[in-house]
């Protein structure tokens, strides 16, 4: 694609996604000759032909969880979030990976496409049926949904792991420098966060998976990075721009900076805190805002980070701490970071809460808090992001295999990819990852989750499996 036209086409991609979704939804309700269907088809034809006048071929491709238009990823944004999700779901149902518009199209071509699209999911092999019935339409070609190649996936995993540990290492370094009163430059922090933003946009589940690995010895640094990753991922779901995601990730990375001021003997105390010690703990948002405001010259990012650091323990219903003389509505970023913070803290073994919760248990508590301590709107997005069985959840399968949730499935929340760690004979095994959406020849699911268990209760080292 060429330069300036790229931008036009990317803008048009929104129209294409929206209109294709409108056509398919309308066709599911009405007869093909219904005026609503006809006018929606006409509009779609017009959009496609306009795009074809600029490009020779238009390819709409589903890769992983994202659509690409002529190799450019279409950004997930608020304007067409529902239509985007609808199309991803419907494409996957039909094993449909791409739709290629090669020649100028006419309404009749789209009508055939829509008819086949509507009928295909009910066949045994949806894509083959689809392909067969589309043979007569010369202007539209379709492609099968590509499975993620394991080897590629392995490389990506290595890259994600590198990003994660670089971030932890950087965070450790910067916190130690601040503690020592040394000057710190945040240029590197931005780079760290930008890399995480890119990976959330491309490999959301892999980076989210890294947050399930908890390191008690380096809790503070892992927690900061985890909260940053979870916040960026939630922000991405909320349709924030790359720039905003970076700001959010930065604010989240430094949200707990005030904890530097807590004396180590209090922070690392293995027993419960006294009232006086709690008073000290509750001061960390105040110390946090001060630390950030002293870090560098005031700019937009510092302002946002300082606000988040001050508010991340204040709740949606304005309870929490610090207590204010004049309470104000919470900042949007603070609400996001608060979600990420609570979830990661609940699922981590901290000094002052030695027994962490299983991810599913944490999620159910978060659900209880939605509407009081936590924003109910963000809860909906959060649950969509981490899935019903978040990565790291210990699960028993209907096949009597015990496994760990390895990757969530955005479309079938109850059917994630699971790594089997104990086989159905009770033997410890390592490695094989199964997809719970797999069906047998009768069209029945081969495996389903029957039970969840708390991995912490059994001292299961998630790093052993997820790294």
């Amino acid at each position, binding site marked *: *694609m*060429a*330069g*300036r036209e*790229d931008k036009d086409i990317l803008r048009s991609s929104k129209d294409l996604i929206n209109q294709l979704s409108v056509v398919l939804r309308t066709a599911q309700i009405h007869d093909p000759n219904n005026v609503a269907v006809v006018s929606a088809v006409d509009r779609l034809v017009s959009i496609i032909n306009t795009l074809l006048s600029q490009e020779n071929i238009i390819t709409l491709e589903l890769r992983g969880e994202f659509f690409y238009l002529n190799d450019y990823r279409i950004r997930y944004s608020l304007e067409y*979030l*529902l239509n985007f*999700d609808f199309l991803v779901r419907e494409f996957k149902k039909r094993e449909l990976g791409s739709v290629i518009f090669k020649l100028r199209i006419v309404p009749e071509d789209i009508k055939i496409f829509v008819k086949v699209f509507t009928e295909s999911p009910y066949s045994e092999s949806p894509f083959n049926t689809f392909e067969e019935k589309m043979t007569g339409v010369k202007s539209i070609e379709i492609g099968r949904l590509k499975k993620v190649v394991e080897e590629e996936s392995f490389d990506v995993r290595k890259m994600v792991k*590198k*990003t994660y*540990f*670089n*971030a932890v*290492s*950087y965070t*450790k370094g910067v916190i130690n420098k601040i503690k020592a009163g040394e000057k710190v430059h945040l*240029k*590197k922090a*931005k*780079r*760290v966060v*930008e890399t995480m933003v890119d990976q959330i946009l491309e490999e959301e589940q892999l980076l989210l998976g890294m947050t399930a690995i908890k*390191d008690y*010895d380096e809790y503070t640094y892992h927690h900061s990075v985890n909260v940053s990753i979870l916040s960026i991922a939630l922000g991405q779901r909320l*349709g924030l721009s790359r720039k905003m995601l970076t700001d959010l990730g930065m604010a989240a990375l430094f949200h707990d900076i005030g904890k530097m001021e807590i004396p180590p003997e209090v922070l690392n105390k293995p027993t419960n805190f006294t009232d006086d010690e709690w008073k000290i703990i509750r001061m960390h948002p105040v110390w946090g*805002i*001060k630390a950030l405001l002293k870090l560098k*010259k005031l*700019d937009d990012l510092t*302002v*946002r980070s300082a*606000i988040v650091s001050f508010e991340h323990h204040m709740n949606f219903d304005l309870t929490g701490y*610090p207590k*204010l*003389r*004049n309470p104000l509505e919470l*900042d*949007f970023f603070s609400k996001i970071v608060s979600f990420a913070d609570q979830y990661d803290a609940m699922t981590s073994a901290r000094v002052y809460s030695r027994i962490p919760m299983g991810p*599913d248990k944490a*999620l*159910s508590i978060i659900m209880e808090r939605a509407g009081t301590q936590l924003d109910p*709107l963000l809860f*909906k997005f959060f*649950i*969509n992001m981490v899935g*019903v069985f978040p990565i790291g959840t*210990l699960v028993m399968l209907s096949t009597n295999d*015990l496994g760990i949730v390895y990757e969530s499935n955005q479309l079938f929340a109850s059917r994630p990819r699971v790594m089997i*760690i*104990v086989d159905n004979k*009770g033997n*410890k095994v390592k490695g094989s990852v199964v997809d719970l959406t797999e069906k047998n020849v009768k069209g029945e699911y081969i495996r389903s989750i*029957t*039970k*969840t*268990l708390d991995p912490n209760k059994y*001292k*299961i*080292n998630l790093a*052993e499996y997820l790294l």
Partner: protein
Amino acid sequence: MELSEEIKATKDIIQAFLKSKKMIRMYPPNNPIYVKTLEDCYSKFKNFNYYKDMLVLKIKQNEILYDSEQVYSSVEKEDNLALFFFKDGLREITFRQGLTSEELEEFLKIISLDYDREVVDDDLVTMLWEKDFQNIQYIVDDAVLADEEDYEAKAVAELEEKATEEDDLHKAYEDAFKKEEEIKEVSIVPLTDNDLQLLSGELTKDSQDKIGKLNNMLFELLYIAETLPDYSEVIGFFMNSIDYSIRHGDIQMVTNVMAKMKQITDDKSASEDMKKHAKRVILFAGSDQIVSLIGEILDSGHEIEEKIFEDFIKFLDKSSIMPFMKILGELNTIHSRKIVIDALIFLGPKDIMTLATGLNDSRWYVVRNIIYILRKIGDKRAVDYLLRTVKHGDIRVKKEVIRTLGELGGAGVIKALKDCLEDPELQVRSAALRAFGNIASEAAKRIIMDRISDKYFKDKDFEEKKEYFEVLTRWKDNEVYNLLMEIMKKSTFWGRSKSYEDKACAAYCLGLIGNKEALSILNKFKNSSNNLLREYTYSAIHRLEHGR
């Protein structure tokens, strides 16, 4: 295209980068040299892309490679393009065929920045990342980001060391068959249009300025401050916030902070320490640092609502007079100067003496502005300072000060103005005359009348004489009337034409005074053979008879 040609074309592009880096720093975007440099660089890309879709440059510490061939090398620490890319982790840059001239310009602007300066907050990679180029891709080595070498390997090894015990796994497996553990009932909640609307509202709210919110938090910090260092720390944050707001042209935000600080200083229940520190913030808002920034904002053409600026000024202390006077001479636009002059008119009465120091400024226009401000303030305490300026070397200043003295009046003024009547410059003498008219005292009248009665008065130019008589009309009493009548009646033999001028002026003045008793004498001259006298007499009669 042969490889050697590709290499040559690539080298040309690298040279164009080096040239552009210099030119972009030196010239503004509308300069023809800037435009030409950009066009040349772009044409070199077009030339390359004619044969090849992509230009991939591999970055090494001291060299740049194209297809394993060196296209640039340098061992210098400064001005080394390879090192410039390399040190931030950039290892490969790809320019795709679709590269637009806009993208190229943005790229060149980014590589032209001086990243060693404190003001550039981001590094090269961040700048490229933020632009999100469609046709420029790059590969970076993020190892530069890790603070500790081999951190990943060590951390992973440590994490994996804590292997799960087999017994624990078996226990988990056994427990999984027990009934008490059930799947938690959390389900995916579908998003609705209403959710999206709510989200849209959140995003709109989020786009609003955050500094107001930060200020509210700072006030919370101020309220919980206990020690002097606590107060000082928070006050420092407020100062930074004020600086930030002014840089963003948000004067209203600063006024809001000052209004709250004022409430604290007026609050009987607030501690003395808190009040003292609140006062410091108010003083800071009128400091050199902030007022200079205001000057920059004003000159940048940023629109500031008059009411907002007025509200801001109301909270300022007399200490802000000096900083405002300082920027007065530095501002480039009339509009900004007008705003600052208005500010000083408001602030000046708080310290006339400081304001008057502006009269010593070496720039005539500043002195004139200060005189204008003093006149608008109208405080007689300014007279002593103004009198020292009467002998200023610039006639524009002299005129301004004479006018001001005339409006303010006062003891020493008459003497100074009287001296001005002797000034060699007509404009100064005229200004002094008008000033006497403004003063309108008996002493002033006496001086004017004495001057008119002086035997040398007749030698002045007609226009100047006329001004004397005009000023005299401010006093419509008998003494003036009688003097005018005397002049009308006076007969001379020598210098008759000069006498006619005096009579014409007196006639003109009688008309303006409006005493109809003068008609009889005026009528005597209405047919005078002297044109000037006839004309002025006629005009005076007409004014007396018809009231205009």
